[in-house]
């Protein structure tokens, strides 16, 4: 005989609802960000100038654009996971918490999407 409620049995989840998935996603994105962020930092430091022509020429190289896109995607995802935990930990009022969690998603999708679109424009020259 199970002591779990019928609804709990049907949903098949524990009290935390999603167990270890969040923890793993945060760690994997963290590992991916070590080479990506260091590539970005070193690339900027190794450019002879940081003026428009130099920076645009560098980003227009296919490999730079590709890595920059990966950087924006993984960075946005990692920040989303991290700030979610911060909001869940420190915002206790239910409505405020829900509002913040949902609006953060919109901000991340907008910000990340705009960054990726900008890189595509540079790569494809429009």
């Amino acid at each position, binding site marked *: 005989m199970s002591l779990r409620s019928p609804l709990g049995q049907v949903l098949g989840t524990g009290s935390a609802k999603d167990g270890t998935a969040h923890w793993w996603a945060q760690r994997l994105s963290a590992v991916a960000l070590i080479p990506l962020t260091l590539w970005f930092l070193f690339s900027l430091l190794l450019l002879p100038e940081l003026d428009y022509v130099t920076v645009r020429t560098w980003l227009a190289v296919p490999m730079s654009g590709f890595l920059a896109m990966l950087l924006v995607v993984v960075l946005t995802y990692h920040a989303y996971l*991290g*700030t979610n935990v911060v909001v869940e930990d420190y915002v206790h009022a239910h409505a405020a918490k829900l509002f913040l969690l949902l609006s953060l998603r919109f901000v991340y999708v907008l910000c*990340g999407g705009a960054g990726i679109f900008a890189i595509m*424009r540079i790569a494809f020259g429009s």
Partner: protein
Amino acid sequence: MISDRTPPARNRPLSPHLGIYRWQIGNSLSILHRLTGVALAFGLLALSYWLISIAGGEQSYRAAERAFASPAGMVVLVGWTFAFLYHLLNGMRHLFWDIGLGFERRQRHASGWLAVLGALVLTACVWALLWHGGRL
């Protein structure tokens, strides 16, 4: 969901219990990890703005350059450099813990100081390089 609507019988303390810790290197660095993480999340806005300004052409890049090179912009950029380097080093500390390494008291303290001091030194190096190269 239901528990959110029914008021609790007693106001029990909610985790994380920030008020009961004695300040020491362990919890200070943990809090700094979160603070730098939140600061870096705001940095995403700047990163996207910078990328958009490049895509927009020389005029818009100049405007972004002026914003970043202003006194306030420089302070924020130096702050983000430190936040990134600290979050990177301390994050690697966390990853080592996750695979079960570096839990001894001496190792924890040594790696903690390494993360803080390393981030400070590397921030100085990055900005010295930028300054030296005359790229500011």
